[in-house]
Each structure stands twice: as C-alpha cells, then as structure tokens.
C-alpha cells in the first residue's frame, strides 16, 4: 500500500497507542524535536484514521483528540471519521467519537448534519449511557438545524423514567432553546412539570437542580416572562434544603423581585431566614447579594445583609473579604451608609497584598465620591498612587480620571483644582494615562471658559520642565499642554517663557507628531506676541492703552471680549504685559524662533517641515517689519508697515477663534452630497493600508488644520523610571550649559528668579511638596480673587452638546432569540394557565391559585394600570443608567438637581401577566 492509501495490517497491529503518543511527546523536549515528533505522529494518524478497522480508527481519533484539546491542533479533517465512529456498535468507539465531536465540532463543521441521524438514534437508545453521550454532545455542539430536528426526541426524554437521562435532557434544553426558540412551545410545559412534580419526589435534588438551573439562565435574559412561575419558585425557596438549588432560586428571585414589588415583599422574609440560618457561606453570600441588589428597599433585610457583609470583611479568608467588598459595592448605590460605616476596612484594603482586593476597595472608594468630597478623596488617592506599584497606581489614576469626568465632569465644581490635579497626575512617576489626561485637558479647555487661565498655567508648568520630555508616557500630556498654551496664550502671564519652553532643545525627544503640535503652538504664540506688540505701538501713540486693542472696523470674536472682561479683573497683569512687549523682547523672540527652527525646515517629517516653514515665514516677515520700524521710527508708517501688521492681525484673528466640542453625530448630520457613493467597496484598500495603523478616532475634531497626533506607537514604552530620573538631573545640567553657550538667544528676562525656579527637576519629592503648597496657595489665590470665598462659588459653565458627548454607550440589546424565547414562554404560560395547565398542577397549587385565576383574569383590566406602574420601578434601575445620558442632553447646568430624581420614566406597556402568588 502506498503512502496515501489505507494502512496496512502491520500498521494496525503495531499502531502507536495513545499512551505511546503521550510518552513520546513527553520524551521530546519542547521545541523543534517535539514538533517534528508530533508532525510525524500526525502523518501516521492521517493514515490510520482512514482504516476500515474501527479499532485502529478509534485509537487514531483518540490521539487526535488529545492533540486537539491540549495542543490545539486543527483536526477538522477527521470530523467525518468522528461521525463514523459514533455509529459504531461498540461503546468504546462511540464514546471516542462523541468526545472528539463535542470537543472539536463547530457550527461551521460541514459533517454536522450527518450526525443528526446518529444523535436521534442514540437519544432513543435503551442504553442510558448512550443517551447520555448523545445529550452531552448535543449540549455542546447544538445548532439551529440540530435543535430543530431533535426537539421531538428531547421532548420524549423530558418524561423519561430515568432521572439520569431526564436531568441531562433538561439541561440540554437551554442550548436547544437558545438556538431554536420554537422549541419552547413544544417543551416548555414539560420543563415546568419537572419543576413541580419532582419538587416533592425523593431523588437527591439533582432533577430539581437541573430544572432550576435552566430557569435561572433563562430568567437572566428576560425575567418578565417567568413571573407566573413565581409560586413554584417560592415553594422551592421555602422547602428545599439543597444549597445548589437554593442559590439558583435566589438568583431567579433577584430578577423577578425587581419586576414585582409585591413578590419582593413575600420572599424577603424567607431569604432573611435563610441568611440567618445557613452555614454555607456561598448560600449566605447569595442571600446577601439578592437582598442588596434587588430588595434594597427593605430596611431590616439590608441591615442583616450589611451585618453579614461585615462578618465577611473581617474574616481571615481572603475570598470572603473580597466578596465582602463586592457586597458593599452592590449596597453602595442605595445605602451609602453601609460603605461609610465600613470605611476603615475599605481604606485599609487599599493597601492589601492582593491586587484584586485593592481594586475592589478602589471601586468602593470611588463609589463614595460626590461633589463635596471629591477633592479630599482625590488627595488621599494621589497619596496612595505615589506609594503603590506602577500597575495599581495607574489603576487609581484611571479610576480618578473616569470618575471625575463622568457625565461631562458632573462632580467637579472647582475646575481650577481639577486642572491642577491633572497636572499633578502627569508628574506621578508611574503615570501611564497620558492619553486620557491629554483628552481631558483639551476637552476642559474647550468646554469651560473660566478655567482657561489656570489651564494655561498648568500647561506652562508642564512645558517648562525639560525633565518631563524624557518620559515617553507623558508625551501625550505635553502635547495637550502645548496645544493649550498655544490656543489660550492670551491668558499667559509670560508668552515668551512659553515660547522658550516650546522651542527648548530637548523637544527633539518628542515623536514628530507631537513635535508638530509644539511648533504650531509656537506659531500661535508668536502671532499673539507680534499682534500685541503692534497694537501697543499704535495704542501708545493714540488712544488710552487697552491691552486688547479694538481696531475699528474689526469685529472681534466673542471670546476676545470675554477676555477683556477677565482681564480687567487682573488689570495689573495687563500693565505687566504692556511692559513685556517691547521692541527688544520681540526682536529676541524672533531671533530665538528663527535660530531654533531653521534647522528643522529640512526635517523629513512633512508635518514638522510644513509647520516650521509657517512659523519661519511669519517670523521673517515680522523681523523685516521690526527692523524697518527701527530705522524709520514713526516717520514712515508706510504701506509696507500696514500690510505686515494687517497680515499679522489677520493671522491672529484666525487663530483666536474659539473652538467648541463637537458632537459625535455631527458628521452624520452633514447631508451626503449628490453623486457621492459612500457604500462603495474599498476593500482593496485594505491590502494597501494593511501596515498603516488607523489612528484611534479622536472623540472630537477641530475645525482648524492643526492637530492632535493620533499615533502613540512611536513612543517606546520601555523607558522606565530610573532612566527618566537620571535624565532629569542630566537634562537640567544640559540645559544650563546650553543656556550659557547660546545665551544671546535667550530672553534677557527680568524674571530671572522666576526662570531659575521654573526648570525644576521632575519627580523630586521636595518639589512635590512645593506643588502641594503651590496648589494650596493657588486655590487660596483664586479664592481671594473671585468674588466670594469657598463653597458659594458658582460652578463655571460647562459647555455640553445636544447629543452624546463622548462615545455613545452601546445600548444593551437583547438577543433576538431571547425575545423569541420569552415570547414563546409567555404564550405557553398564559395559554396554559386558564385551561390545560391547571390539570397538571400539584394539589397545593390547584387549591390555591386555580380559583384565583379567573378572578385575576377578569380583574386584569382594572389592575393593569396599577401593576404597570409597579413594574416601572424595577426597570428604572437599568433605564436610569441609559437615561442618564438622555437627561444630560436636556442640559441642566447644575447636576445636583439631576441626581435626586427617581425618574418617572415612560415605560412601554407590557402585556399583563396574571399574578398567582398573591
């Protein structure tokens, strides 16, 4: 026989067994030796599996199964052989075949349909073990086709006399329903019967456990449909002693209780009873979870639950402590007192050895945050962040960032504080949240006008520190700082200083995309300086000086006027500025710009090159103007002068236009022009652009053609702290040297004191204290400046959009199938209740609820309104979260109002389900 043919007799006789294969693999060291061995064995197996001898085939398949499940080899080529083996009369072969099928088959496996017949045959086999194999396999590989074809067989098994088979059939139903919702109509009644009849029977509860397990999973997806079954579940809750069953039933009630308050009232007692009585921690915890997540309105139950949580928290077992924290987290939204009561434990857990526990504690701390304590909590957390390992430190920063920015910075009242917190975060040694901080700095800049001066101050502090440039993790933040300082340069105390920072030599450490932001910001600063200078020149000769000149015939944008207002408050700084823009200083700036940027004009990066040329163009133009100014003084204020200053003014005007945040859906609202085909397939582009990584979509876009670099990829993430620390000292000395050598390019500043302190080494612990002091001073300062002290200070206006601000949260969609299932369930239940169903009911049920049925049904008309009102309550929990956004849109500016409302949402009327419990 040739290689491609079937195996010879010798092959079958001396076939490697599974043991041989396993031993062989273990003998060969991992690496090439092992993989050659495996591929050799695979070749053998490929031959063996085509054998007509089922035994050989079965051994081959066993080996394949081993390779598949533990070494992840693709064995789809053997699918047919697996099917073949399942039809073998030998139990061993059948078992092997089914094992391979259940481990390796997928919905796409083409021979799946061939298995249908065999499954059917085995499902109706008299050997219960064969039935079990088929059910087990079906429960894993079930597809729509299989489910549809085999539903009748499973239906039969649901009434099997063997519990062993019946429980598997019941468990299997879950898969069948999810694939083929119509099966509900056929099987649901029998499923319910299993729930009722077996409850009393003396099997050790496995049957009931399986049935309840199915209901538990079904109810998770769409609980409403199962409300009519509440009496059955209630009975189980009170009577069962099986913890596995009780846990599942509790989960079901957690779902149902949210929908039906009267049901909650009824079950809350037995649950508390269970909680007090049970020894099993798992059950106790399930009770706790059920109470705090669904029955939180019942004070006594919650009290008891919190007591239990406290026991958990103080336990020596870490698992229980973890769960205790989780329990608290669930209580927090409705009963914050429980968290506050256990505050010490929570705070202590922040420094636990186990990272998971720390995380839970952090979440809890964040759940306590509100607008009153956000400042204090953030201060504590920053302290923890400084002490923690890098990973957890970033976790802390991340949660602070996300909590504070929630709902468009809902909880932030003092934005000056928040912005300086962001600046402080950037300086935390392990900070890796550059992207988020970058986003928030710019976002706040655009949304909150009042905070811009402080923003510029924070930006300046970051820019001016050369040590920060060495840390690639915060390049993104620097990019934001640069943008902010350029965009809002008019609020700067000393634009020259910013210019110097933007052009400092160490900026060559930045990736090109961010460097171009720096350069463009330099452009803005330059145009601002020139403009201010020129307008002073004029102002000085004519009208009384007003720092922001109002040129006749020029309409200034709103922001400019805004600025004059804020500026009046600090009119001293205007004077100071007036002194700043002397001819000499401007000339110095121009020299600085030209000398430091000229080398970059030849940069290979187009972005940089282009921006550099823009700046140089402007600088040279201005230089000419100034020198000619110098010569002729005021004699010849001729056309050239006018022209240049007009150009500068135009540029400045263009740059000083205000940006606002842009809605996500803004683009959708732009009508598609005629003749533009958007759906055309561009798939060919994929191959071309494969290696170009698409930028992460920015959550806002800007009108002007500057902007944020989208790739952080070039940033090498390896750089670690030690490096940046050593480089901090190094860089300061480098800079000092540079200054000495190129002294003439630096501004002869009379703020030398200021300048010397403005290049502090980053990450210096002492400096940190200064920062804190600064911060304190700053807040004091700002408080003095502003009208009233402290709390009464109004929250600045935060611009919000009509529609979703950040990425819209995907609305949770219920699976179409789930709807179908619950629809079918409802039909079955409602259809049955009145007629046939009651015949099968247990005695208790018959006596109690049957007579009520009709009453209820006739009553439904009148009670429906009342009930639907109740139901809304349950729904609100979810809806509030989704609705939060909606409410945001309508845009009250002070959030406290928003939080209080329990929301009387309009809910869709649901079909009324008769209530048998009450």
């Amino acid at each position, binding site marked *: 026989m040739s290689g491609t043919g079937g195996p010879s007799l010798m092959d079958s006789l001396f076939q490697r067994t599974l043991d041989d294969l396993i031993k062989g693999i273990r003998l060969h060291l991992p690496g090439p030796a092992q993989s050659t061995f495996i591929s050799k064995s695979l070749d053998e197996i490929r031959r063996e599996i085509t054998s007509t001898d089922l035994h050989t085939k079965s051994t081959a398949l066993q080996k394949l199964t081993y390779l598949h499940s533990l070494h992840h080899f693709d064995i789809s080529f053997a699918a047919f052989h697996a099917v073949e083996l399942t039809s073998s009369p030998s139990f061993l072969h059948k*078992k092997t075949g089914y094992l391979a099928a259940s481990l390796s088959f997928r919905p796409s496996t083409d021979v799946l349909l061939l298995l249908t017949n065999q499954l059917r045959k085995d499902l109706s086999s008299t050997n219960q073990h064969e039935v079990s194999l088929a059910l087990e396999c079906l429960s894993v590989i079930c597809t729509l086709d299989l489910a549809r074809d085999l539903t009748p067989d499973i239906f039969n098994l649901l009434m099997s006399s063997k519990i062993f088979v019946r429980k598997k059939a019941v468990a299997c139903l879950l898969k069948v329903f999810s694939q083929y919702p119509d099966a509900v109509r056929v099987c649901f009644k029998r499923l319910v019967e299993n729930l009722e009849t077996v409850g009393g029977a003396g099997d050790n509860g496995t049957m009931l456990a399986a049935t309840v*397990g199915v209901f538990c999973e079904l109810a998770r997806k769409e609980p409403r449909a199962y409300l009519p079954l509440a009496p059955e579940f209630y009975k189980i809750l009170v009577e069962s002693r099986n913890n596995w069953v009780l846990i599942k039933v509790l989960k079901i009630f957690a779902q149902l209780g949210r929908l039906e308050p009267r049901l909650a009232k009824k079950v809350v007692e037995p649950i508390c009873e269970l909680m007090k009585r049970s020894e099993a921690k798992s059950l106790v915890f399930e009770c706790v979870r059920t109470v705090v997540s669904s029955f939180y309105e019942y004070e006594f139950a919650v009290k008891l639950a919190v007591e239990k949580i406290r026991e958990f928290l103080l336990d020596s077992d870490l698992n229980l402590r973890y769960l205790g924290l989780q329990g608290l987290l669930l209580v927090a939204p409705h009963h914050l007192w429980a968290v506050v009561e256990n505050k010490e434990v929570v705070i202590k857990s922040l420094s636990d050895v186990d990272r998971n*526990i720390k995380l839970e504690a952090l979440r809890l701390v964040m759940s306590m945050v509100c607008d009153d304590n956000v400042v204090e909590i953030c201060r504590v957390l920053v302290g923890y962040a400084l002490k923690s390992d890098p990973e957890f430190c970033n976790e802390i920063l991340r949660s602070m960032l996300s909590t504070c920015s929630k709902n468009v910075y809902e909880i932030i009242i003092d934005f000056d504080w928040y912005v300086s917190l962001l600046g402080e975060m950037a300086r935390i040694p392990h900070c890796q949240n550059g992207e988020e901080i970058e986003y928030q700095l710019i976002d706040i800049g655009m949304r909150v006008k009042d905070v811009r001066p402080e923003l510029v101050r924070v930006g300046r502090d970051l820019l001016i520190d050369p040590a920060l440039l060495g840390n690639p993790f915060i390049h993104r933040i620097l990019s934001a700082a640069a943008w902010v300082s350029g965009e809002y340069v008019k609020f700067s105390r000393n634009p020259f200083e910013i210019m110097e920072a933007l052009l400092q030599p160490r900026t060559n450490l930045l990736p090109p995309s961010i460097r171009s932001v720096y350069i463009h910001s330099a452009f803005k600063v330059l145009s601002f300086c020139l403009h201010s200078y020129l307008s002073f020149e004029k102002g000085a000769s004519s009208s009384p000086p007003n720092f922001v000149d109002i040129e006749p015939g020029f309409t200034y944008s709103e922001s400019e006027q805004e600025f004059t207002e804020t500026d009046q408050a600090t009119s001293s700084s205007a004077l100071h500025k007036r002194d700043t823009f002397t001819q000499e200083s401007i000339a110095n700036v121009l020299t600085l710009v030209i000398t430091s940027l000229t080398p970059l004009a030849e940069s290979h990066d187009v972005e940089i090159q282009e921006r550099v040329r823009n700046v140089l163009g402007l600088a040279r133009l201005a230089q000419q103007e100034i020198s000619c100014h110098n010569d002729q003084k005021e004699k010849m204020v001729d056309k050239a002068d006018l022209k240049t200053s007009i150009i500068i003014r135009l540029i400045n005007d263009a740059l000083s236009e205000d940006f606002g945040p842009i809605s996500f859906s803004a683009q959708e609202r732009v009508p598609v022009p005629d003749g533009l085909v958007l759906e055309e397939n561009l798939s060919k582009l994929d191959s071309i652009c494969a290696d170009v990584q698409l930028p992460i979509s920015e959550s806002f876009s800007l009108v002007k053609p500057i902007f944020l670099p989208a790739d952080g990829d070039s940033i090498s993430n390896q750089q670690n702290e030690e490096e940046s620390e050593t480089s901090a000292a190094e860089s300061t000395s480098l800079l000092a040297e540079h200054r000495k050598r190129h002294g003439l390019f630096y501004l002869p500043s009379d703020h030398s004191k200021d300048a010397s302190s403005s290049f502090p080494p980053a990450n210096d612990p002492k400096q940190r204290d200064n920062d804190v002091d600064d911060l304190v001073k700053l807040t004091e300062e700002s408080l003095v400046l502003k009208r009233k002290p402290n709390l009464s200070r109004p929250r600045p206006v935060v611009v919000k959009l009509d529609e979703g601000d950040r990425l819209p949260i995907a609305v949770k969609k219920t699976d179409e199938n789930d709807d179908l299932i619950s629809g079918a369930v409802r039909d079955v239940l409602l259809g049955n209740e009145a007629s046939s169903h009651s015949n099968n009911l247990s005695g208790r049920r018959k006596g109690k609820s049957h007579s009520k049925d009709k009453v209820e049904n006739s009553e439904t008309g009148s009670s429906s309104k009342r009930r639907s009102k109740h139901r809304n309550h349950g729904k609100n929990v979810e809806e509030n979260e989704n609705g939060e956004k909606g409410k945001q849109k309508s845009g009250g500016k002070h959030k406290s109002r928003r939080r209080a409302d329990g929301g009387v949402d309009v809910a869709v009327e649901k079909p009324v389900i008769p209530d048998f419990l009450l």
Partner: protein
Amino acid sequence: MIHFVLLISRQGKVRLTKWYSPYSQKERSKVIRELSGMILTRGPKLCNFVEWRGFKVVYKRYASLYFCMCINQDDNELEILEIIHHFVEILDRYFGSVCELDLIFSFQKAYYMLDEILIAGELQESSKKTVARLVSAQDSLVEAAKEEANSISNIIAQATK
C-alpha cells in the same frame, strides 16, 4: 453558567479544556495564554477570583495543577469553588490520590468525569457516589467492548478481510 473549564499545570501546560460557550480555536488559545499569564503569576495566599474581560475566573490550585472555571459576573464564586473541589474529590476517588500524571495519561477519563458533573455549563450531579457509580458503569461497558475487539477471532477476521 460556566463558560469554560481549564486545567493548567504550574509550568503553564494545559491539561484539560472544556468549552461550554462557543469560542473559535484562535480565541481559545488566546484565552489560555491570557489566563495562565494572569493566574500562574498570582501569589499563593491571595483570593481565588480574578476578573477577566467582564467575566470572573475562579481558580484553585491543587498540588501542581490549577483548576480554573470562568463564570459571569453575577454568578456565585463560592459555589464554583465548591464545584471545583467536588471535581477534584471525584478525580481523587477514581484514581486513588490523583496526580498530574493520571490526568495526562487518562485525559479522556477526566473528560468523562467532568461530563458527568457538568452539562451545558451547569452542575448536574452533586453526589460523588453517583458520579463514581456512573463512571464505573461506563468503564465496564468500555472494557467489554475492548475485550471483544481484542479477541483473536476479531483480529483474524480483520486480517482476512
């Protein structure tokens, strides 16, 4: 419900995988890689739960093996720990103080036992005795089949085919 069961050795070798929710082969390898990276690096005296992609993974180490099960966020972690223990006890009873090698060489047996304990991601049998009885019943069926296959007459029949 349980989404999958993993047995990983301390060296990161996979000893058993069972998937109750659909995952492609690629996803499976990724899941194993991620989880073994996460779980094997955790110290010995920490809690037995890790959060992973919005799910929870409950794990417990027995000798050199980590037993991991992945569940939904709102499932009961302690219950799963009990299931894991249940599984281990059954293995132990069957193999007689089970060790990693037992699972390596009788990997199918481990699967069969798991299949008697869990079905469709749910616990189906909480009695150790029952499981032991079922597994031994199936074993005897298998033995019977083997004997028949190995009988001389069968081999001759095969050879002369």
